[in-house]
């Protein structure tokens, strides 16, 4: 198949050929002249201070060029407090800034050597002396230390705790463990100083412009002097939304050794140093009338953060805006632990909250003896219940129907634990997701070349969903030319501005810029042609007729005032059929149907893959993912892919991804909303609900591993 060729399912990935041939180069895959290797050594204690570091053996080891620690690190200008001002109490972690140890695995040294093997070995020779303080790393044991984050953590509409007055009510606790993004590509950077104040990096990042900005600030050099390259990103899911300490380490090391330095994290570092989804405890009180109208919901949450940053991901937001419930109050507290900071992970906040909310709805449905979909339809929100604003678009009810029909929801036995086939219990579950549909600002340069090919340039990154493919689809339609004639350039900080790839906003944001740029370019052509211009002109011919080598526009684009008038969300619903072995507790995912209501689908083929991928992430969350810490040491004990399980092929059946595919009239010209987050949000609840339907066992603490199912005492086959 030709690269970028279309078929009935939509455009194939425009960068697909590079990826299937191994020609796509990721951040660690460049070799600037004279490049050497950096390896980090991490703290083996969890809290305290570094008394001394013996680096002699490392320095003497073959090939070693430098060993940099907080004792000899050149001053990093951006870390220094503003003159005359006290040091802020909290803020981003500062590498080699002082001798404080804030978490286990915190980098205490970077070793630079001429080969990777030598750097790695030398790093193992570093001996540190610590003064250890008592650490706390358990959320469970320290929930009483929870505090309200400064940037908003409570909400209230109607009467407080109104659920308690309802005829039918339940109150339950739901827990998700910490999860790590675990992109397949290890975080990596190559840093090269081109002059004393001029830097080039090849860096794994979800936003080259943000990384450029942050690095410039940290090293106090002009922004335009920082060139960030990130053309291919091997997954990230949120882990590459900020500049982490290893990036600073490589840049400092390159300065010290005066040579380009490559630094790739080890998989174990990916569990401590590039963020995670925070371990979160939640409690939901929910009450309804006997016919299933919600009376009130109280949603409390307490999640972990680090001691040096408050990370507020808002897990209760989903409860505020999902159902038409008159009385909703929520609180969110943080507990500071001696662990590195959490960060945004696919579906941040909502993925956590939706597990609790969708589980609670399911529990309520059994109490009411009402079908879970019917219960949701009875409380269907036609306008945003929190803000009172109209939704820009919402076709979730259609999504319910599409999904229910596809999975065969009518085969679901409303009685839990009642269906057994060939020795396996079977059950169906569903769970919904929602996430704000955002549109940020972006700029696109569009250049029509003499040969009729269109060049699009904007500084977005693509962590995998297929941004280039979606942008080419949009441009192809806007310009009326085939995808094969369009080249999309990105992942380069010298290109026009685009935001980070995060928050499911890129198609809506950068897509709008591409669309607007194409429209503007087309208008330029139409002006050239005079009034007789056609809809899809022969651009090459016009350029030739006017003796022009090319024609270009640079167009900035942002959302209009509709963004304020409407509540904008993408919606999803996941349906799952599971098989559960009654005596061994093994859960097999048998069928999955996901339906997204995310506006017009601009790139059906990649969109489908994105939904499938998110669903699989949700299956991992539901069934196996959990960062385990031995709190005696404050250390992650399953910091590898053998012990931290993510789904493998054997866990995953065929997954149906369906789209309502109705344009949102207000968000942008394409009518496209985001879908990266909603692909995952709600999935864990759907799986847990299916497991309950199969077994009568309600697992409220993820992941649902065999041990929990065989130890749970619910009685199978009896109404609960």
């Amino acid at each position, binding site marked *: 198949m030709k690269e970028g060729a279309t078929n009935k399912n939509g455009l194939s990935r425009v960068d697909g050929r590079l990826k299937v041939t191994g020609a796509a180069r990721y951040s660690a895959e460049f070799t600037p002249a004279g490049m050497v290797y950096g390896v980090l050594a991490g703290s*083996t204690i969890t809290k305290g201070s570094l008394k001394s570091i013996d680096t002699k053996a490392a320095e003497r080891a073959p090939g070693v060029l430098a060993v940099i620690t907080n004792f000899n690190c050149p001053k990093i200008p951006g870390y220094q407090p503003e003159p005359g001002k006290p040091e802020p109490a909290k803020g981003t972690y500062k590498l080699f800034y002082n001798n404080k140890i804030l978490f286990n695995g915190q980098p205490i040294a970077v070793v630079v050597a001429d080969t990777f*093997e030598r750097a*790695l*070995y030398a790093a*193992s020779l570093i001996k540190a002396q610590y003064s250890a303080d008592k650490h706390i790393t358990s959320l469970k044991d320290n929930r009483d230390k929870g505090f309200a984050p400064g940037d908003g953590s409570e909400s209230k509409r109607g009467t407080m705790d109104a659920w308690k007055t309802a005829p039918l009510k339940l109150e339950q606790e739901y827990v998700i463990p910490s999860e790590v993004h675990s992109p397949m590509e290890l975080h990596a950077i190559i840093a090269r100083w081109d002059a004393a104040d001029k830097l080039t990096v090849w860096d794994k990042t979800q936003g080259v412009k943000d990384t450029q900005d942050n690095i410039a600030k940290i090293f106090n050099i002009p922004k335009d002097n920082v060139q960030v390259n990130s053309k291919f990103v091997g997954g990230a899911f949120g882990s590459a939304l900020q500049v982490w300490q290893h990036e600073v380490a490589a840049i400092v090391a390159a300065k010290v050794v005066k040579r380009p330095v490559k630094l790739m994290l080890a998989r174990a570092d990916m569990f401590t140093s590039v963020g995670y989804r925070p371990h979160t405890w939640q409690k939901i009180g929910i009450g309804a009338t006997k016919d299933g109208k919600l009376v009130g919901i109280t949603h409390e949450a307490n999640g972990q953060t680090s001691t040096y940053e408050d990370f507020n991901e808002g897990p209760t937001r989903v409860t505020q805006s999902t159902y038409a419930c008159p009385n909703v109050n929520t609180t969110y507290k943080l507990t500071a632990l001696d662990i590195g900071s959490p960060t945004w992970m696919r579906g941040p906040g909502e993925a956590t909250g939706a597990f609790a909310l969708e589980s609670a709805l399911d529990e309520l449905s059994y109490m009411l003896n009402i079908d879970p979909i019917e219960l949701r339809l009875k409380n269907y929100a036609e306008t945003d219940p929190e803000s009172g604003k109209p939704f820009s678009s919402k076709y979730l009810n259609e999504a319910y129907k599409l999904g229910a029909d596809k999975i065969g929801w009518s085969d679901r036995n409303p009685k839990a634990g009642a269906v057994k086939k*060939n*020795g396996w219990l079977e059950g169906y579950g569903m769970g919904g997701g929602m996430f704000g549909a955002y549109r940020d600002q972006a700029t696109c340069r569009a250049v029509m070349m003499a040969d009729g090919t269109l060049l699009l340039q904007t500084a977005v990154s693509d962590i995998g969903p297929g941004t280039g493919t979606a942008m080419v689809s949009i441009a192809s339609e806007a310009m009326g030319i085939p995808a094969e004639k369009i080249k999309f350039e990105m992942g380069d900080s010298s290109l026009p501005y685009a935001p980070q790839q995060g928050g499911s906003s890129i198609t809506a944001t950068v897509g709008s810029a591409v669309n607007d740029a194409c429209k503007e370019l087309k208008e330029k052509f139409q002006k050239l042609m005079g009034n007789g211009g056609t809809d899809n002109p022969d651009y090459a011919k016009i350029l030739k007729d006017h003796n022009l080598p090319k024609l270009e526009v640079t167009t900035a684009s942002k959302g209009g005032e509709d963004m304020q008038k409407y509540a904008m969300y993408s919606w999803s619903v996941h349906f799952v059929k599971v098989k559960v*072995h009654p*005596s*061994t*507790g*093994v859960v*097999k995912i048998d069928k999955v149907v996901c339906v997204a209501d995310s506006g017009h689908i601009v790139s059906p083929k990649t969109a489908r893959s994105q939904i499938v991928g998110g669903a699989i992430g949700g299956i991992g969350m539901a*069934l*196996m993912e959990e960062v*385990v810490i*031995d709190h*005696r*040491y404050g*250390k992650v*004990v*399953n910091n590898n892919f*053998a*012990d931290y*399980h993510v*789904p*493998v*092929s*054997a*866990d995953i059946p065929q997954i149906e991804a369906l789209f309502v595919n109705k344009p949102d009239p207000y968000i942008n010209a394409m009518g496209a909303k985001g879908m990266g987050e909603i692909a995952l949000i709600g999935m864990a609840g759907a799986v847990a609900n299916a497991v309950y339907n199969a077994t009568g066992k309600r697992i409220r603490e993820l992941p649902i*591993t*065999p*041990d*929990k199912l*065989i*130890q749970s005492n619910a009685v199978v086959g009896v109404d609960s």
Partner: protein
Amino acid sequence: MKQFQYVRASTQQGALEAINKPGAKIIAGGTNLVDLMKRGVTAPDKLVDINHLPLKGIAATKTGLHIGALALNSVVSENNLVVQKQPLLSMALKAGASPQLRNMATVGGNMMQRTRCTYFYDTTMPCNKREPGSGCGAMGGINRMHAIFGASPQCIAVHPSDMCVGLAALDAIVVIAGRKGERRIAFTDFHRLPGDHPESDNHLANGEMIISVEIPDNNFAKNSYYLKVRDRQSYAFALVSVAAALDIENGTIRKARLAMGGVAHKPWRLFEAEKALIGKPVSEDSFKQAAEIAMSGAKAYEYNAFKLKLAPATITEALKHAAGLV
């Protein structure tokens, strides 16, 4: 990883001489050894590559099946003789690791693989197996994957192999070569319990190497099953695994072989349960009784109590599969 000297052995005698030195280690597939070296758990001065020795053969003998120590896990699992005569071994092998790792790992290497206990792997943690006298990190720590049988106060780690569980059930014999000649020991006597010396996984003496495994002929081919329960459907170590083999005549059990993985420092053969099955009718009840007997003496720790339920359930299920009841 520390530097080391690499030599290739071209004869068995050369290999035996090369390893007869402190700090020298044999490397075959390397799937476990290289990993341990990367993590600094072991740091040999010298690696003796034995992959070029003629120890890859699989052949039927007068009394059973001979499998060379260097036969690859993937090759053994697909070998016609193995599939026909000892399907349990094939099933156990296929339940282990991944296709790529099975293409590298050898039979001898699989037997020599070390525990996957996280405290053993992490050189910043205490572990009596890695560093005698440093304590057992797992005992009061995260011991969800750990032993319920045969543990000692020094060590509660489990042996990670699936293949070995199959071989233990099948009464295999291990053929070992040393500079003074060959010796043969029962597979079930090859690995050891931790006792006061958890640093020692097995009874292979310094300077010895495994050269082959022999499985005596039996009547279990029709009624064998390997059942592995794990946190995901593939490419994960066992929570509990069971190798079950039955010799059934007219609905009555003549002989039974049972071994468990994921529960002890060695592949855990269930001799008492096997005895209890002899003469019993093929039924779920017989199997449940045997499973109950098998659990005698089991002891759990903070996070692995579920194995006290999971193990008998898995024994029963494996026996049902072996007997064709599922």
